[in-house]
């Protein structure tokens, strides 16, 4: 009995000393899906919610740019990414100040500028909404390197199949990693500060 208690307490002690759980990417490594070699930032132009042209490369120059293609009637996937990034903005003011979170609709018929603005304001008013014609949106998706979205059904409440990953471009203009659905909050908090440091000067 005493022996059993000793063994048990030894086990408890060992497990208590194992330290906090570690998510991959120790020693300053990225935890996202690494893009090797890093992909250069593409050129494409879409339209912002005021109806002005948004030149992706020019508008995001020297910034950490996070781009995601989704739609506001997406109930399951899109809100998760946006809620996570809104929390990162709350927790890390450096990342919030130096980052642009860009949500590009792949459902421009239903996602009018007003719909997009209201939707994004539920997460963080700093998030940028972009739209475009079907052709412009296809060009943008191909340029960023994600699969092109398509309508899954033809009814009025149609669903849109779309890329699940957020693609991130560091301030130096390169994309080192992307973040599929299922990315944990802790991964964003590890990776975004690392990527923020990747500027032209380093």
């Amino acid at each position, binding site marked *: 009995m005493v022996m059993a208690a000793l063994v048990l307490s030894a086990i408890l002690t060992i497990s208590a000393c194992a330290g906090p759980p570690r998510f991959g990417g120790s020693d300053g490594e990225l935890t996202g899906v690494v893009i090797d070699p890093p992909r250069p930032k593409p050129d494409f132009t879409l339209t912002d919610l005021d109806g002005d042209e948004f030149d992706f490369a020019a508008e995001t120059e020297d910034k950490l740019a996070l781009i995601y293609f989704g739609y*506001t*009637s997406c*109930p*399951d*996937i*899109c*809100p*998760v*990414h*946006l*809620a*996570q990034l809104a929390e990162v903005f709350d927790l890390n003011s450096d990342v919030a100040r130096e980052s642009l979170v860009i949500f590009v609709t792949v459902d421009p018929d239903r996602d009018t500028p007003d*719909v997009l603005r*209201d*939707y994004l304001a*539920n*997460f963080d008013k700093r998030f940028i909404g972009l739209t475009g014609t079907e052709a412009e949106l296809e060009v943008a998706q191909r340029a960023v390197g*994600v*699969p092109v*979205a398509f309508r*899954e059904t033809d009814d009025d*409440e149609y*669903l849109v*199949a*779309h*890329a*699940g*990953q957020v693609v991130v471009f560091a301030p130096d203009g390169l994309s080192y990693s992307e973040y*599929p*659905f*299922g990315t*944990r*909050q802790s991964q964003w908090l590890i990776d975004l500060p690392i990527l923020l440091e990747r500027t032209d000067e380093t």
Partner: protein
Amino acid sequence: MKRHLMMALTMSLLASGCGADDEGIVITDARVGKPLTANTAMYFTATNQTDQADRLIAVRTDVANRVELHISSMSDDGVMTMNRQTDFSVDAGADLVLEPGGRHLMLLDVDILEVGDTVTVQVEFDRAGTIEVEAVVVEPGTAGSG
């Protein structure tokens, strides 16, 4: 006397451990993302405490015109799709876990709901019948476990 007491205690412990057969299906952790458009998603865990497999076949709620059973999945090239299902099966003694990015319920033409509201939902199983649960409305995108 003492021995009888011990036996009775043991028996009652055993009974509570094995007596799950008649407790049916228990639904916990029911939550709905605050709707930002005309639809939203609902999640919960249904624990099948019976000794027979069952199927979730329909869900109704006064706050939505229609509730569909969906599975989100990711293709090899990274496209997220949602596919409508006719039922969700749950084995005997197993959990049916509805969660973001997987099996979930899609509420269509849904009322305006605020965080903290509760929604009454009727969940119908093929064998266990209809179970009524209260789902709580949570911030959009935060219905997952992490």
